[in-house]
């Protein structure tokens, strides 16, 4: 986890949404709330910077006080007093429960199967949840060179489930990604079971307009829930494949007053 999603989602002004003035919220605030609700109390979460960090700290402040935050930098049980800018921020260390080497993070925690939830983001996501964080265009002669996999490959493989955070955009949500940095539910035609990948993969894709979820049989991402006031056509406009829509479509609740208060006062989102 790193700042990939931050680069993609967090760096432009959010328009304010919501009905009444006192409950107005930004798109990022809604995404943070939606992601936080996916986390259960006591779970062990591999945290990234940006929206995942907001979501984890929001969940700790609301329904999941026993969430264990682990950063790939080696901080275990972090309680940052400020919003960390990087996953190696010193505030993740001060007052944490444990600091270990990165060899231990990847071997004893991640590969060991101790991580219950991982967050992923990326420049390109395909219909099976495969992610490209490596390069746009040809790998050897890229049009745009992206940062690369970082820890996302092994998070995608070993976390018991992952949450993908990405804003809808036809250039991002594509039939096929140019490069598979992190495997989804089917990679180059092979299922996770076939590839002997232990984790369940991306159970939810949290976008700025809707939640996508994988079809249990095919592994294809489908529209599972809409944000308040969003139409199916608006979602389809941001997706580069023929999106399936579930029959019983959930509607996501707007952020509650308590969620917004916690997000703005405790988590200190600016």
């Amino acid at each position, binding site marked *: 986890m790193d700042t990939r999603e931050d680069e993609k989602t967090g760096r432009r002004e959010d328009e304010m949404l919501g009905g009444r003035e006192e409950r107005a919220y930004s798109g990022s605030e809604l995404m943070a709330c939606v992601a936080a609700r996916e986390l259960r109390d006591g779970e062990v979460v591999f945290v990234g910077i940006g929206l995942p960090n907001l979501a984890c700290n929001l969940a700790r402040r609301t329904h999941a006080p*026993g969430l264990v935050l682990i950063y790939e930098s080696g901080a275990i*049980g972090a309680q940052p007093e400020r919003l960390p800018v990087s996953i190696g921020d010193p505030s993740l260390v001060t007052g*944490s429960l*444990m600091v270990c080497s990165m060899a231990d993070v990847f071997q004893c925690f991640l590969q060991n199967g101790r991580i219950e939830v991982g967050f992923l983001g990326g420049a390109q996501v395909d219909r099976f949840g495969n992610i490209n964080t490596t390069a746009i265009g040809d790998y050897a002669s890229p049009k745009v060179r992206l940062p690369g996999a970082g820890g996302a490959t092994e998070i995608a493989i070993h976390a018991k489930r992952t949450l993908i955070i990405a804003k809808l955009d036809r250039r991002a949500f594509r039939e096929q990604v140019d490069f598979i940095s992190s495997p989804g539910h089917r990679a180059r035609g092979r299922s996770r079971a076939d590839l002997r990948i232990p984790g369940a993969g991306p159970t939810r894709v949290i976008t700025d307009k809707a939640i996508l979820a994988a079809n249990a049989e095919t592994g294809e991402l489908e529209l599972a829930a809409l944000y308040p006031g969003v139409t199916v056509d608006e979602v389809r406009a941001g997706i580069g494949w023929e999106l399936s829509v579930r029959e019983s479509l959930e509607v996501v609740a707007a952020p509650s007053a308590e969620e917004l208060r916690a997000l703005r006062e405790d988590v200190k989102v600016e």
Partner: protein
Amino acid sequence: MHGGNSVSRTASKVVSMRNAVAQHVRDGDVLVIEGFTHLICFAAAHEIIRQKRRNLTLCRLTPDVIYDQMIAAGCATKLVFSWAGNPGAGSLHAFRRAVEAKPPTLAIEEYSHFGMVARFSAGAARLPFWPLRDYQGTDLPVANPQIRSITCPYTGAAIATVPALNPDVTIVHAQRADADGNTQIWGLLGVQKEAAFASKRVIVVVEELVDSSVIRADPNRTIIPGMIVDAVVVEPWGAHPSYAQGCYDRDNPFYTAWEAISRDAERLQSYLDEWVYGVADRAEYVRRQPQLVERLTARRAMSGEVSYGY
């Protein structure tokens, strides 16, 4: 964003040794009580003997007096190890009687120290094997067919392998932990971290239960995170006759005395009758030897402090 020990999932991890053993150590388990000379949890072994666990596969680099007692008490059917002597004092005679019997009454699976360390490392990393450059020219791979080899995909060289060791339960003694099992150890670390991460269940036994703020003040000292710990037992002097750096010294006279005790099967049983079956728990064991505290309590040798500020 601070706010107390919000990581604890439950406060009920802190239990008595009796309850920890009753709940987490079962007949037939693959059991590890680790600690290389340092922090060997005799208190747990004695409780396991009292509760008459049977058919255990005992694993340790150095079976030491602790497993000699458990073998003598009839807990074990198999031993996995790398050096079975009484350091500085002689033999482990209960072990020797069992292995030298015709036929042997104890099965063994034997590695070198590096091999045992590698087995725990593989277990902790959930890899099925661990590679090591070892065993060439020795008879160990003949004696133990679990020692195999692999061809390096870069150099073509043959590299030895050992299989992962993933115990059912691992017991680790430590200087201190919080109520959630976040555990700090200093001095010799042995293979405790690897054994704990390799294990299905983990019991931590500590000299001192501390507030989470003590752990959080020095997170680099944490060796085992609470998230992999099932039970926390507070048992001062629980490692005697081994030692706990900063708390009490090794009882070398006891180790020396074990040579004569263990050489005589009847005397060994008398020892168990008096000091294991004959006491209710570790507290009574300590109470009945008041000179231990006077003789072995550690002098202070302070570490100095560092700052974690930013």
